[in-house]
Structure formats: structure tokens, C-alpha cells
């Protein structure tokens, strides 16, 4: 049930771009993206919903391919503040038409160097 993220780690120089991928073996209702700084709680970045709606960050974009059950997070012109671990979370159905739960991938560690 846990989504799979790739790559596990990325090292960038300031200004470079990165793509982080998230895939699931289950049909997805939505995909969440969070960033966690060392020693802190995860912080919400954005949500992608079936049908293409996005909610979240102005400077970070993402895509959601429902058929392929995949999502990608695009970090462009990276800044030092982008460093951290990025987690994708997926909402899956637990019972037919019933409640859902949010499960996370193992994370992608992004390091942005000057």
C-alpha cells in the first residue's frame, strides 16, 4: 500500500531543477506532497486530485497521472531553502465507498548546495 518514491536522494546546485516521482500499486484518489526539514514536522506543499485540480504551493508544481497511478513533483530554479526530505502521501480506499487513510512513501532527500 505504501507508495514508492524515486529517487531516494538528489543533490543539486542552487538554480538547478529536480523531479521527484511517486507511484502506487493502488488506485489513487489524491496525492499529497510534504516537505520535512531535519528535526521538524512535515509541512504541506500541495495536493493533486483526480480530475486535475491542484491545491497548494505557488513555486512548486506537480502532475498526477491517474491511469498510471503516478505523480511527479517539479522543483524548478531550486533555492537553498528547498533542502529537506520530500514525502508523497496517497489516499486510498479502505472500504467500498467508505473511509480512506493517508499513507506515505519513504521520502526523497533533496540537498541544494550554493
Amino acid at each position: 500500500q505504501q507508495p514508492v518514491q524515486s529517487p531516494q536522494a538528489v543533490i543539486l546546485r542552487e538554480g538547478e531543477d529536480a523531479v521527484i516521482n511517486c507511484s502506487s500499486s493502488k488506485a489513487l484518489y489524491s496525492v499529497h506532497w510534504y516537505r520535512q526539514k531535519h528535526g521538524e514536522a512535515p509541512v504541506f506543499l500541495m495536493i493533486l486530485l483526480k480530475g486535475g485540480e491542484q491545491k497548494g504551493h505557488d513555486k512548486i508544481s506537480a502532475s498526477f497521472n491517474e491511469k498510471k497511478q503516478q505523480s511527479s513533483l517539479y522543483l524548478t530554479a531550486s533555492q537553498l531553502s528547498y533542502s529537506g526530505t520530500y514525502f508523497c502521501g496517497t489516499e486510498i480506499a479502505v472500504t467500498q465507498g467508505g473511509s480512506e487513510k493517508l499513507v506515505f512513501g519513504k521520502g526523497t532527500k533533496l540537498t541544494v548546495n550554493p
Partner: protein
Amino acid sequence: NAGVTQTPKFRILKIGQSMTLQCTQDMNHNYMYWYRQDPGMGLKLIYYSVGAGITDKGEVPNGYNVSRSTTEDFPLRLELAAPSQTSVYFCASSPTTGDGTEAFFGQGTRLTVV
């Protein structure tokens, strides 16, 4: 707004001791979650609740118990602590799932079992 509040922030337990990690949210959210995060690892779902009186197991429930007697509170009980339960525990809440609502995280409880 206080958001999601976890207590304590740090705790050292001896093997075999028990304790309760407290989690309270003041946003009237229906969904609440407990995750554990081992060093360098992702967030693993322990238990979750979709409303007062309703709880269900997540990915790694063994050694833990929960209750949800009120909308606000979702305590996590550790019985007979073991070194394998050394981890950082995060509580999170969301209004619902499936329609693009983010999860709000507490600041975490760092637990060491010796």
C-alpha cells in the same frame, strides 16, 4: 489556533514500561493519524481514526493501542516498551480525505527505549 499539539516532546522509557503519547487538535477535524518515523526512514502509519469512537489499524500497529473518545483527542498507548519502538512519533489530523484537504502535523514526540 494551536493546531495539533503533542505531549511530551521527549521521553526516555525503560524496556517493559508503558506510556501514553497525547495528541489534541482544536480544528474539529474528523480524521486523526499516528505515524512513526525511524531515522532516515519515511512515515509509517500506526493507527488512524475517522471520527470519535472509530479507530483502525495502519501499517505497523503491533505493540500499540489507541482510543478516540472525543473528536479532539487521539492518545497512543505503548504497552511493554521495546527498543524497536524507539522512534519519532507524529500525530496528524485532517477534516476529511478524498477531497483535497491537507493533513496538519504535530511537532512530534521523540521516544527512546533503553
